[in-house]
């Protein structure tokens, strides 16, 4: 079944890595069992900050999933051959990221056993319904595409013709998953932090920066630890995409800041104040947010100067800074910042608890396990073909 036999053959390093991931997953699962028993009271969430780490990770990872389009689109729409070797890596990254998204939604549910009610009582006026549709659709699309193209590659034949339209559908679909995710937040009348039409474009820009940055790092890791080398050119092209997307993202953030602070509407300003200078003596996210800003500035310097970007060692550092900066921005600030202050003006701080963090790490480990196994299969197929 799907060449999984190739995933169970590997060296000591491969198995120890899988072992580490399995241990993190087991720890997360144990914490989740505790959450199932005691309820979401084991998290740091409260009546004012009702979504936190889980939903923020979900939001960030939808972006990572959507970013596969940045390799799929040039390769399939523009026949850009340079991405031939990385396209399937992007698709597998998307599959793993969407799976993590779904797990993060599941662990956030108060009554996970009833989650099928979303399908049993379909409610098209709820954006969450459409999020479910778009995410599961995207998962199926990418799974089919990856399976069919990799199978064809192994057999040394061209993929069947019908896969082309499926791939073409997956391109706007990728945009849709992150747009719908933004709609989850920016249609809420009482939450001024998210009530901006720029949210979806901002989501996409940050996604198209953080996602390809992760893909570059994964390619570099593959080169370091395996025989497989995607080559210099695709990495440089990806770096260019990261650069443009990061510039656009920072531009969007500045647009947001201008609108909020020049208009001077308190309700809109307070969330930014909480995040960047603290509000009513509460400012636990302030160091995080400024770290994100500094990393963003540093990444722009490293990316925009061609000499730095062309040096792969510096590029690796730039990709890490991009990824961390956007992870803090989206994976912490964007969700929590929307809840503080509350619609009644209360400033309640949020910090994830240890069990909550261990559940989140467990889900990340599931994602990395999937990526590892998928990449292992891909490389085994290519090794066999190359031999």
């Amino acid at each position, binding site marked *: 079944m799907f060449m999984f036999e190739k995933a169970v053959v590997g060296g000591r390093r491969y198995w120890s890595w899988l072992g580490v991931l399995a241990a993190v997953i087991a720890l997360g699962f144990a914490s989740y069992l505790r959450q199932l028993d*005691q*309820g*979401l*009271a084991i998290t740091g*969430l*409260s*009546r*004012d900050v*009702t*979504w936190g780490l889980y939903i923020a990770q979900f939001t960030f990872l939808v972006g990572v999933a959507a970013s596969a389009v940045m390799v799929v689109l040039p390769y399939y729409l523009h026949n850009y051959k340079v991405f031939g070797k990385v396209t399937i890596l992007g698709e597998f990254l998307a599959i793993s990221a969407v799976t993590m998204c779904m797990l993060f*939604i599941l662990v*956030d*549910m*108060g*009554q*996970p056993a*009833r*989650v099928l*009610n*979303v399908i*049993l*009582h379909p*409610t098209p*006026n*709820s*954006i*969450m*319904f459409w999020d*479910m549709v778009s995410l599961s659709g995207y998962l199926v699309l990418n799974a089919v595409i990856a399976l069919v193209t990799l199978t064809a590659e192994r057999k040394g034949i061209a993929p069947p013709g019908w896969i082309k339209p499926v791939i073409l559908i997956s391109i706007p679909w990728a945009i849709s998953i992150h747009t719908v995710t933004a709609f*989850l*937040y920016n*249609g*809420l*009348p*009482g*939450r001024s932090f998210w009530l901006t039409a720029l949210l979806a474009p901002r989501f996409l820009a940050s996604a198209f920066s953080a996602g390809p940055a992760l893909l570059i790092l994964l390619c570099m890791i593959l080169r370091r630890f395996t025989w497989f080398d995607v080559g210099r050119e695709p990495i440089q092209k990806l770096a260019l995409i990261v650069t443009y997307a990061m510039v656009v993202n920072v531009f969007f953030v500045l647009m947001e800041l201008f609108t909020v602070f020049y208009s001077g509407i308190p*309700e809109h300003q307070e969330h930014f104040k909480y995040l960047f200078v603290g509000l009513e003596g509460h400012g636990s996210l302030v160091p995080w947010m400024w770290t994100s800003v500094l990393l963003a500035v540093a990444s722009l310097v490293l990316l925009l100067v061609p000499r730095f970007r062309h040096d792969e060692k510096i590029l690796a550092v730039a990709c890490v800074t991009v990824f961390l900066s956007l992870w803090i921005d989206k994976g912490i600030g964007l969700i929590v910042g*929307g*809840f503080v202050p*509350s*619609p*009644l*003006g*209360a400033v*309640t701080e949020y910090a994830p608890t240890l069990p909550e963090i261990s559940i989140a790490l467990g889900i990340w480990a599931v994602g990395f396990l999937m990526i590892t196994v998928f990449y292992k299969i891909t490389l085994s197929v290519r090794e066999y073909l190359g031999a």
Partner: protein
Amino acid sequence: MSIDRKTFLRITGCGLAAALAGSKIAGLIAEAQDELTTPDPAALKGRRWAMVIDTKKCLKDEGCDKCIQACHRVHNVPEIADARREVKWIWKEPFEHAFPAHDPEHLPEALAGRPVLVFCNHCDAPPCVRVCPTKATWKRASDGVVMMDWHRCIGCRYCVAACPYGSRSFNWSDPRPHLVQINGAYPTRTKGVVEKCTFCDERLARGQLPACVEACTEKALIFGDLADPGSEVRRLVRENFTLRRKPELGTAPQVFYLI
């Protein structure tokens, strides 16, 4: 015997159908043929239930919490010490929190910092209903009450994020250990579901006024049908200047404050 032979045979037939075609179909047949469900004839009837709060009367005794006690007792609302995990259906907020658009620096003394009763506004365009992915919360077409179905709620808390009034509470843990006494005629909740005021739908259905209205000795809470031109609530909003919470959001709250 309440069941005649024909009914009996029909029901046994249903049992057979259940074995053959699954209990769901049988249930539908039984429902269609044998069960005639009706509202209680004593039920209060209204087309658009609404509430007027006379803040002057309410503020006569700032320490009074009869309405809150009555509501929370009858609905098994737990008393949770940790304010971050509180569950509340009706409570008091300082005026400037309930009405943040009003300049707190220059409020009349009679209002600044004074406690105002707040609860679900039973909005005409409720954002919580718009976002719920399972219809676990919905606006009743017959009388405008924004309802909750605790059997259906999956605990995603999207409604909590959507409500601009903080009227919704999530059960972070099992609420039962936090109940000092239990009203056996009303369910408690389980962990992982969202709850809120339902305008006492269970009391309206039996012809009773909401528990808070009944408990208020000052008659500061006036409940009635806003769609009825002759109703007391309609008269009060016609003859007086009233405030609603955040009307600029377009949610059309149905709780009016006489200032």
